[in-house]
């Protein structure tokens, strides 16, 4: 059976003299393909803190914590590579298309997990009456900008913009007692606004 042997011999000689397929990593750096799905990383400037990535992650690798830090409400989004699937759902569902993206980093071994986590922190807007969390400041402003001109039909948004431009400060005291119509420019959360319209309280504050 000489013929088959020649075929295999040819292949054997070719593979003997060609470069081995194994790469030289870690002695030489390895560049993954362009579309490679590596570790997700937040972009502090473009992420608005809406929490869409937290909601869609199949492995629950993104943690969202809303808490008071130094008297102000803050939201922290932390991505944990130890649970991550590198699927890219966070990147695909990000509302700004730029808040979190999958980088080319594939080497995520660690001694301390904080070295490889990706974190982003935002200020939260809370209702001055009931304390309910509305959303992050950046998210509200991003929505405003998307609305364009119709945004100005909402008086609370006007006062929010005035705060952004520094025309009023945020250091107003909490709105105590029953909400009245005069408070409507300060109250953001829909629950309290509805109460003001429904219960027409004439009690003095």
């Amino acid at each position, binding site marked *: *059976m000489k013929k*088959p042997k020649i*075929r*295999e011999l040819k*292949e*054997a000689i070719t*593979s003997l003299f060609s470069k081995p*397929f194994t790469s030289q990593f870690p002695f030489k750096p390895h560049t*993954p*393909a*362009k*579309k*490679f*799905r590596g570790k997700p990383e937040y972009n502090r400037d473009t992420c608005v803190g809406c929490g869409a990535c937290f909601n*869609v992650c*199949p*492995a629950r690798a993104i943690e969202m914590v809303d808490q008071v830090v130094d008297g102000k409400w803050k939201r922290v989004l932390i991505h944990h590579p130890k649970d991550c*699937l*590198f*699927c*890219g*759902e966070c990147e*695909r569902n990000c509302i700004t298309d730029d808040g979190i993206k*999958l980088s080319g980093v594939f080497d995520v071994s660690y001694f301390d997990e904080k070295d490889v986590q990706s974190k982003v922190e935002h200020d939260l807007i809370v209702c001055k009456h009931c304390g309910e969390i509305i959303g992050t400041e950046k998210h509200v402003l991003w929505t405003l900008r998307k609305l364009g001109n119709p945004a100005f039909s909402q008086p609370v948004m006007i006062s929010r913009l005035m705060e952004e431009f520094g025309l009023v400060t945020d250091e107003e005291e909490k709105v105590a007692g029953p909400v009245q119509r005069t408070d409507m420019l300060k109250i953001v959360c829909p629950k309290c606004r509805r109460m003001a319209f429904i219960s027409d309280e004439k009690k003095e504050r």
Partner: protein
Amino acid sequence: MNDKKKVIVPIGPYHPLLEEPEFFALYCDGEKVVDVEWQAGYNHRAIEKLSEGKHWDQVTFLVERICGICSTSHPFAYCNSVEDLLDITVPEKARYIRCIIGEMERIHSHLLWVGLAGHFLGYNTVFMWAWKYRESILEMFEMITGNRNHYAMFKIGGVRRNIEDEDIPALRKVLKDIRAKLEMLTHAVLDDPVLGARLKGVGVLTKGHIKDFGAVGPVARASGVDIDIRRDDPYAAYPAVEWKVIKTENGDVFDKAVVRLLECMESVRIIEQSLDAIEGSKGDIENQVREMPVGEGIGRHEAPRGECFHYVRSDGSNSPVRHKIRAPSYTNIPTFKASCVGQMIADVAIILAGVDPCYCCTERVAVYDADKKNKKLFGFSRLVEMSREKTERMRKQV
């Protein structure tokens, strides 16, 4: 069972040689196998229960991780089942892309099998070469999908990523190379006298066995049972491309090898035709799904190992209320009861490999002493050694 002392050979459950843990107990009488018992569950991960707590789109990623080798078969069957429930169709470009991914996976899975079969028989060069050719396919996967395994390409209603025109030339080059290598491998297997003597007539499964156990895939087609879900229950772009179903008659391990190698050639044909169809196309890749009605759906896909079957039920909420997954190996592995009985112990390793068990929910094989159940005679490495020794003996005879 008669009075003669039976020997039970245990193989498993955890062994460095086999990819996943599983357990078979072979009852042996001297050199011949008399009965086989299969125990499963070492790899059980409660995926059907987990499905009920995830959203419809998140379940795709969960089922992708059922298996590493046939990683795309489960999302494919799952998406088919949900699309059956919703009664929607997938855009044309997405159908071709799904076929491309599915067929590339078939090639890489069969090449992996060829390597393992060679390894069990003692042909380590075949092992090295087959896995080397497989590497170029995995590189292509990384280029198109972003990862060598767990491609995350499937979504209910379409695919998640596009195959850009600039990637297609590299893909075509790899396919051309693979075709040449596959031809060489196929002829090397078919012409080799030692392989023929070693594998022909070993582990035969008749049509009756296939029917009794519900076996599918190359295991069934090697025994002459003409079933292939891509042709029988068409989905994606399979009705639009030309290809043929490979079927042989004898049902032994040699035929199974032939079926798998020839199937790879058909896969290359399908991929080339699909690339011709999508090159330059600017179509949609997704049909957006916004609401899930109440109902149930069944979806199937011809995975490299056979028919992968998913059944899904919805009550209108965000998660499935019942998700039944049947991997092809679930019905293929019990065929050991029929194919191993009456065979020599030295052949068990290759008969096991012939079914190409993807132990996504199964175990390993062990051989015990029939009378003293705890006396383990030898493990799987010894069985593989015995298999290789037999090949050496046959090579000297030929």
